[in-house]
């Protein structure tokens, strides 16, 4: 151990083994994953995001939603994700082939979002983003009111939010900025319920 070269060879071999095992081999196993085509129903899944939803994903990433929300449904042995209504099946590798950067997440301060597009409407999402505590009392989610504009009533637009009861301010409306609209479009696109063969158990 007094010869530097022995040390360096040791460093390279030990580290190299984990690179092979945890990076290279998974890459070879999963790099050629293609979307699944159902010939009977002519459906292809997954599809890459387009347009507003694709832009909205960037807003999701930029605002750090990943630090409190996951986007992975686990199977019933690991937890009652499915019983909670967070999905009809666990998510698998193919669900994420177009996700760059992938937003699996590691904290569930808030609920999982892999299928949130099926749970809440655009209207609810806007109100919830504007002030989470308005829709879910006790929530600790930060408010994203900076994605919205407060305008006098006479400058209202069709997509203005109608705030529930005690939250509404007479004479003013809340209008989503473009970032809020694309973000909600992205959230509405989140749907991993497609019946993939490898997800069946």
């Amino acid at each position, binding site marked *: 151990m007094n010869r530097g070269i022995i040390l360096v060879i040791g460093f390279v071999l030990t580290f190299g083994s984990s690179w092979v095992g945890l990076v290279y081999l*998974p890459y070879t*196993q*999963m790099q050629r994953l293609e979307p699944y085509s159902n010939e009977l129903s002519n459906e292809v899944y997954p599809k890459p995001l387009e347009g507003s939803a694709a832009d909205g994903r960037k807003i999701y990433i930029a605002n750090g939603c990943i630090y409190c929300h996951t986007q992975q449904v686990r*199977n*019933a*042995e*690991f937890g*009652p994700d*499915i*019983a*909670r*209504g*967070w*999905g*009809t*099946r*666990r998510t*698998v*590798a193919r669900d994420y082939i177009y996700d760059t950067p992938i937003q699996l997440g590691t904290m569930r301060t808030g609920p999982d979002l892999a*299928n949130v597009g*099926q*749970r*809440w*409407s655009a*209207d*609810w999402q806007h109100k919830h983003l504007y002030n989470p505590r308005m829709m*879910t009392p006790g929530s600790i989610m930060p408010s994203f009111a900076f994605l919205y504009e407060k305008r006098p009533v006479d400058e209202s637009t069709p997509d203005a939010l109608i705030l*529930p*009861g*005690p939250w509404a301010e007479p004479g003013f409306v809340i209008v989503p900025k473009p970032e809020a609209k694309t973000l909600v479009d992205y959230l509405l696109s989140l*749907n991993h*319920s497609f019946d993939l063969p*490898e*997800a069946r*158990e």
Partner: protein
Amino acid sequence: MTHDEEVNDRINVPEMHEPILREHEEPADGFEPVPTWMMLMFGLILFWSGFYLARHTGDWSGENFDTMQPDSAPAKIGVVTPDTTEKLIVMGKEIYLANCVRCHQEDGKGSIGKPPLLASEWVVGPESSPTKLSRIVLFGLKGPIKVGGVDFNGECPSFGGQLQNAPIAAVLTYIRQEWGNKADPIRPDVVSEARKSNP
């Protein structure tokens, strides 16, 4: 001046700073052997690891995704359809607490802007309709409504995407038989019929 000479110039033995003078020698190695108990323990850990790896690799397949017991029969995902009303209600309560309680509350009385289910004519009584209730849970409900003479204008989200027919039937049965409500249970096939209609 070279760097070495610069440094040498700065060192003045009599005035050398004190910490260096009071230091011990640089660390050296002792040569006690690795204790036997430790070698045994390491051996055990190695055996355990080999055993674990042999049992939990899912045939090294890229399509066998992480589960708790990949080599035993996997748990059936999805739900087992209950065959008695009691089982339906037990399942329904769990679904209710996981999905509905935040608006309709645990006592079924609702809150500001959220209608009650207790003694609601939508849920029990001659005007209640299993199909209509199924459609509400499947597709959601928005817009002004009246419940027990009180106006509401909120939104019930849709659950048809992530709840299958049996759990929906279960939760509807639960709300129709809880808090003093008394109405017939709802069967999963009623829900599946309602699912085929337009939202």
